[in-house]
Structures are given as structure tokens and as C-alpha cells.
């Protein structure tokens, strides 16, 4: 992986910030890029580990996914759902206009 590893530059910061929907001030982009490069450098020692026959581990729990019955047990709580909304109107959340 180290060979393929790209250096995080300003365009990469822009791309990742855009995917993350984070507004990053222009003057802090370089230091953020440096931080990210340091962290990526720090995790690079994983390259040393031979994982060719290792299955990825997503969860440490030993049990199976529990299933619930198909019963309506929730809902009709518009007041609670909307209670913390920065903006709402006639039962809807309201956001700046979205263009499809």
C-alpha cells in the first residue's frame, strides 16, 4: 500500500472536504494536509503485516444479527421528531432549496 500511497495535497484536501461537507478555511488547508500526511505516515506500518490469508474483521460480537417482528411500534411523534429542528413548517423540516 505504501507504494500506492498518495500524498495529501491541497486538491485532495478540497476533494475530501467536499465529500465530508466541511468548509475548511483556505489558510488552514496546508496544515490540515500536513496533519493528514502525518497520520497516514503513522498508519503505514500496517504494510509490514502479511494479511494475504486473513479475513477482515468488521465486528467483534460473536452473535448473529437479531431480527425483530414486523409490528408497528413507533411513529406518530411528529412533535418529538421536529422538536429540535432549526427550521420547520407545517410538519415539515425546512432547508434551503434543493435543485434536482
Amino acid at each position: 500500500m505504501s507504494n500506492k500511497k498518495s500524498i495529501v495535497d491541497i486538491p485532495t484536501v478540497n476533494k475530501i472536504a467536499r465529500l465530508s461537507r466541511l468548509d475548511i478555511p483556505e489558510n488552514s488547508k496546508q496544515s490540515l494536509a500536513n496533519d493528514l500526511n502525518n497520520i497516514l505516515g503513522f498508519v503505514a506500518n500496517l504494510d509490514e503485516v502479511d494479511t494475504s490469508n486473513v479475513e477482515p474483521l468488521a465486528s467483534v460480537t460473536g452473535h448473529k444479527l437479531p431480527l425483530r417482528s414486523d409490528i408497528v411500534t413507533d411513529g406518530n411523534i411528529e412533535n418529538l421528531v421536529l422538536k429540535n429542528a432549526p427550521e420547520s413548517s407545517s410538519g415539515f423540516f425546512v432547508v434551503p432549496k434543493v435543485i434536482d
Partner: protein
Amino acid sequence: MNENLKLKPGHIQGETGIWEMVIGLEIHAQVSSKSKLFSGASATFGAQANSNVSLVDAAMPGMLPVINEYCVEQAVKTGLALNAQINNISVFDRKNYFYADLPQGYQISQFTQPIVGEGEITIDVDDNNQTTIGIERLHLEQDAGKSLHDQHPTKSYIDLNRTGVALMEIVSKPDIRSPKEAGAYVKKIRSILRYVGSCDGNMEEGSLRADCNVSVRKAGEEFGTRCEIKNLNSIRFINQAIQAEAERQVEILEAGGEINQETRLFDTSSGETRSMRSKEDAHDYRYFPDPDLLPLEFTDSFVQGIKDQLPELPDFVKKRLVNEYGITPYDASILVEEKDFVAFYEQAATGGDGKLTANWMISELFGALKKENLLLSDSPISPETLRELISLITKGTISGKIAKDVFAEMMISRKKPSDIVEEKGLEQVSDDKEILKLIEKVIADNQDKVKDYLSGKDKLFGFFVGQVMKISQGKANPGLVNKILKEKLK
């Protein structure tokens, strides 16, 4: 583009030659569950805004998903009906993107390990054209909410009622070659879903919608770049959108341009597709296994249990109808589209002429219902009355022509056909003597024509038949009229 009658469906005549369409469909079918895929809120359509929403659906901090067992069963059931591989271990992934009606900031879906793998179905495109379409996969995922853009000049309104409703995404292989095939494919999927009961198939309410991947190529060439047309909710729009998109692509390619792989919307008023602005951003969904869930695992016996309860499927019923009633496979494919079509047909055809019953049901009854905008369940004509009508025809009590009038009357009055025939005296005249009387009258009234006929004008025979039928008010048995008339005019 279809002026050239020799052009096959799905082919486009361009300046540089004939182009072929390559189509793959992603059908989103809402699971017929009472509650949502990962929350206990109702999955019902049409409720007051944000009333079918739990704190889980609204993605409040610390809320967690718990999967609905029924939805898992329905996906397995549907997979079995699609003759597909059932995966005893599957994984839920997060598909990450920001959108106002996606509260979590990710959709829980299945990416690398879907619950159902490859399968195939057979579709009937027309009477002599049956083809197999491959199924790539079926997976479970969450629906998104709804954004309303027309409530306010600068704001969008968000309703999360649909958020988290369970969908089965059924992905076809790019085996479809024409809009007509696409339509037949959607119909077939819809009927399978309805047979097994995993989805109500209601396209108006959005329970079933399709994304169409369309590309074009010259025969024998590699696949071209495809565009995805999102969210089509009727077979008519699927047809139109595919045709319009393929034509657009041919036009670009023939002008020396290139197709951009992109997501497009079908504008139903203009009949054209257009690029989706909100999807212009290069997407990177960053799929990864949802750490709030564990792999979904089930045993072979769980699958077997579902298999054992699988109802008769359309293909099975179709075969049976062809064998038992001697109807064409295409007619049978139309009848098996809906379970109640089959039930109606079998009741109507029992003990009668299966073929004639199928013809009457498909062309007359379905036509009349469509004109009146009625469902079969609302039909004024019942299987019993249709059966009686068919038997009146086969027994020779009425002619096919009179039967159409009787049928029209049945649609209005809901009366039994025998009553209508009796009331209106429409019974076919099959008595030799009576027919002879009518023929003698016609001969007497048209002596000059008889002379012409006898001197060689054979074509006049039809005139005499017509005259006899006319004075019998259509009731004379046409077979007998022909026979006796021939003898009399020797």
C-alpha cells in the same frame, strides 16, 4: 425513427447504420411490510408529513437500526421466485452521501454481499418471442424521504415518512434489447412480486419504480457508455424514456460526440431525458459494512421453509394454462400477469372453449374494462356470465357478431347473456326451413342479380349472404346460410 417497418424493436436507424439498444434495469420494489426495514414506524403510504417517522428514521444521535424479519423473508422468497442464488450470509453496508431527505447521511444497503445473487426469468415479448433475462442480484435497502420543492420559493420541505421503508432492489443483467422487452420484463417482475406477495407492485404510489441503464452500440460491438435514467414509475414512461435516451445517444455518437456516463431524469412533459444537476458531483459513496449491524445469517432450513410455502408462480401457471386449455403461450403470459386474471379465466373457461374464452377475455373484456377505467375485480361481467356467453357462441345459439352486442349490453346492464338474448330475441336462427324462407325472399327480390350470378359473376355470392343476414337481423346462422344458399343458386 420507426418509419422503417423492417427495423426490429430496439433498433435505431442512424445515418451510419443500425444501432442496437442495450438496457439493464434496477427495479426498486417496496417490501409489503407493515413497519420499516430498521425501525418500528409504519411503512404505510400517504400519511401526514413526518408522522410515520421514528427517532431512528430521523437519525437522532444514538439511534440504532434493528432489522425487520419479515423483510428478510420477503427478499428470500422473491429471490427463490427469480430462480436465484440465496446467500446464507449477507452484509449491510453504508452508502455515504449527503442529501436533505437522507437523515443518517448514509443509506443502509447491501453492496458486496447481497442477500440474493444471480438468477434469471423468462419474458414473453409477443406471440413468438420468448427470451431470458439474467438477474444480477437482489438486495435489501432503505428508501429515502421526500423533498418537496414547490411549497416555498427559496426553501425545500422535507417529509421523512418514506425514510427507511424497506426496498428490494432487483438488478437485471444488461440483457434487455428494446423498450418493449423492458416493459415485458417489468411486467414479469411485477407479477412475480405480486404472486409471492413481497410487494404490492403499485406503480402509481411508487411501490415499484425503475432506474434504466441505457446504452447503444452497433450490432456485434462492445457495450457503449451508459446513462442511468432515474425513478421511472410507469411502463409507459420506461418505454418512452428508453427510446428517447437511446435516440439522444445515437444522435451524439453520429455527430462524433461521446456519451458521458451520468444520471438523468425523464421529463414526462417534454418526453426527453435531462442531466440531473444534483448528481453532477463525482460521487464516492465510501461503502463500508454498517458497524451498527452484524452480518445477516440464516440456515438452509430457513430457506427451505420459505421455499416450501412458495405459491404457484406465473411461469408454472402459464404452462398449466397452455396444457390444460390449449391457449397460446403469449395469451397465457397475459393471463398470468395477475393472480385474479388467472382465477377469473379458469372459472370462465372451465368446461368451455379455453381458446375462445382467452380471446374474449384478453381482447374484449380487458379492452372494455380499460375503456371504462375499471379493474377486473370491478368487472360487470363475471366469470360465470362470460362462460355462459362463450357457451352460447359455441352451441350456435348466437353468432360471434351478435355476441359482441350481447357483451356490450352485459357491460352496461350486468344481465345474464341468456336473458339478453331472450329479451331481445337474438337467438341465432339455425332452422333450415326458416333460413330457406329468408333465402327464397332474397332470391325473389333480386332476380336480376341471380341472373348475373348464374351467368358467372361469382362474387355476388357474398351479396346474397349479406342480404340474408340483414333481413334476419344478424340472427341467421351464417354457416347454414352459406350451405343452403349454395344449393339454391346451383
